[in-house]
């Protein structure tokens, strides 16, 4: 099972890298979102995929899954949510300001 998930992570990273390298800003943002999903899966796989109930007291189960990777993932999701939404607002503002979302057209300094 771990192998399968690892391959899935690899596929997600491939997709994300492809999107990141494209010129459209929206695609780049989608790429970062997929990239973060890939690493969340990796975090879960690295903690070991175990059989067990959700680590919550209300479950009253015999054995629980490792809670730490889940806590890490939750935190990472919150952070990537914040970053992605910020990037979306930024992309929108940039589009408003420059009228383009093509990264080849957008250049900061003239003499670069």
């Amino acid at each position, binding site marked *: 099972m771990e192998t399968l998930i690892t391959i899935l992570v690899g596929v997600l990273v491939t997709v994300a890298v492809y999107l990141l390298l494209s010129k459209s800003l929206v695609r780049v943002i989608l790429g970062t979102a997929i990239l973060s999903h890939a690493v969340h899966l990796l975090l879960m796989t690295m903690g070991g995929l175990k059989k067990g109930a*959700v680590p*919550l*007291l*209300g*479950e009253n189960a015999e054995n629980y899954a490792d809670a730490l990777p889940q806590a890490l993932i*939750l935190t990472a999701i*919150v952070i990537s949510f*914040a970053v992605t*939404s*910020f990037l*979306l*607002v930024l992309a*929108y503002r940039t589009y*408003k300001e420059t009228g383009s979302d093509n990264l080849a057209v957008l250049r900061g300094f003239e003499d670069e």
Partner: protein
Amino acid sequence: MKINDVILQTVTKIVVFIILTFGVELFLSGHNNPGGGFIGGLVLSSAFVLLYLVFDIETVRKGIPFDFKKIAAFGALLAVGTGLGSVLFGSAFLTQTASHFNLPVFGETELSTVVLFEAGVALTVVGVVVTIILSISEDV
């Protein structure tokens, strides 16, 4: 172009309350069951976002005259404040405590300071999410 959205508006008026109730339910069940401040807050804010989608921003602002940035700040203040509260009582930063009380209506109830912390988280999430949506939609 005037879009005819009578059905959406009528449904929304009811559904918003269902979503809000569900959000509160998720928030309260967060102690020992799935749920909690972050998820509850997200569901609550989805209700607000739905309102903004269906009615225009001005109408909703008249109905809900809060500055959502301040709500987010208040939530963060509450969350940090509970952390500092434990310092006042001489235990480590962010220490939480819980105790059982005998309340008149609810009977034997567990009350925990972590609820205050989670309430702070929920308010922050609501404030931040609505602020983000508003800042995208403001000048359309």
